[in-house]
């Protein structure tokens, strides 16, 4: 290609502008244009890639999150503990990380207040070095009965850091049976009978002790 341009240029440089020289020059430009376009596109991708590629593609994350359990069956009001392991799979250190526990109900209309489910839903980590991993414990209270899923996400204040998310931990929470009605009702019904008996005795005692009224 350079030779073609140069050849055309030599023809021009020789002072003689010939039709054949112009044709050769134009042909060289026509061959050059796609190459330039390709180079330009490549340059643009190179400049913009850190912004667009990380925002849109989790698979670009340099941190992986593994969760220690896949599922759990609990009773309501039961505590559960599990771990997550964060690992920096990238070649550079991560920025400071924010690791957050999320809980979602799988049934529509069932309310989940994360504050009630876990005392510590967010943990803050310093930068992870390449290849470094850290284990984070989590504690969770199964507050309501039903089907739930919990997972951990990793984000950073640095905009270029792609969020990472763990696999989900599925929870099936059964209703708790601390106070079954069949046990409560007998106690609730029987205990008041004792003070009632005492009251009846007191009334009977008072009437027994009372005299008839005299004429005034």
């Amino acid at each position, binding site marked *: 290609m350079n030779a073609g341009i140069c050849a055309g240029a030599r023809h021009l440089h020789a002072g003689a502008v010939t039709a054949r020289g112009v044709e050769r020059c134009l042909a060289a430009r026509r061959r050059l244009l796609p190459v330039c376009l390709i180079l330009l596109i490549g340059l643009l991708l190179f400049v913009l890639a850190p912004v667009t590629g990380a925002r849109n593609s989790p698979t670009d994350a340099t941190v992986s999150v593994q969760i220690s359990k896949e599922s759990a069956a609990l009773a309501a*009001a039961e505590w559960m503990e599990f771990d997550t392991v964060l690992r920096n799979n990238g070649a550079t250190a991560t920025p400071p990380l924010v690791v957050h526990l999320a809980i979602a109900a799988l049934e529509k209309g069932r309310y989940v207040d994360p504050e009630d489910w876990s005392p510590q839903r967010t943990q803050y980590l310093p930068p992870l070095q390449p290849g470094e991993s850290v284990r984070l414990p989590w504690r969770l209270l199964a507050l309501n009965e039903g089907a739930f899923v919990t997972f951990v996400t990793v984000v950073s204040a640095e905009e270029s850091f792609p969020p990472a998310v763990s696999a989900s931990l599925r929870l099936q929470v059964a209703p708790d049976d601390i106070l079954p009605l069949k046990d409560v009702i007998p106690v609730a019904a029987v205990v008041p009978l004792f003070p009632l008996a005492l009251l009846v005795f*007191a009334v009977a005692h008072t009437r027994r002790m009372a005299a008839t009224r005299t004429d005034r």
Partner: protein
Amino acid sequence: MNEEEYRQSGWQVVLTSELRRLWLGRWGPLLLLVFSIFLSVYIVILAADPEMNVLSQRMIINQTIQVTELVGIVAVLLLGADSFSGERDRGSLESLLLTPVPRGQLVIGKLLALLSLWLGMIPIAIPYIALVARGTDVAMASLVLLVIGGTLLVGLSAAVGVLVSGLSPTNLMSFAFAVGVMLLLVAPTQLPAGVRDSPIVDWLVVSNPITAVDRYQSAVIDGGAWTNGVWLLLSPLIALALAFGLGPRFLNNRLSLHGGFRP
């Protein structure tokens, strides 16, 4: 009889009469009946409402103890507030003041009679607390806490009621003052969580007998050792000792026909 025998027998005579009035005069059994019905309704609601049933069992135990103590405190406080000012309003106090029994012994007799109401409430509360605490390792501890903590607080409440009643010119004023004092003591429990964490409020909570007992009970039920935080019982113990020790002496010179603070 000489004065020495009066010291031995005056408060006993008042106590016997007050016990008869309370237990054979229907007020005591009626209050126990209302108390047991209240606990029954409370526990049935707890069992039937799924939203409430998901509280941890220890939270339920703690709450049941607190509710029991609160009812005891209120009942004894109101009866105590009627003890002297009620007689003042009904015109029967003069007969009592005309006897040779020292005023302080009148106070002691009425105080101890009020405590009998709490002694009657404990066996009523036992089945309920045993029910909510079954299956845990704090069942016995719950009952012991109810007896210890409840007696401290109810005793204090009785003393406040009787003291205010002895000084108030009318029954209405007595009730108002007694309820006001107890509200002041209960107020720190209602502060927002963030405020409660401040050192000053923490000190207030610890020095307030009601909140101190509450905190101690919660700590033991949540699995703490008995000795862990037992110092929290200092403020209710001191308050009770002062109330029972100094209260009768204080009223000895001040219990009068028309009420008032001056000897």
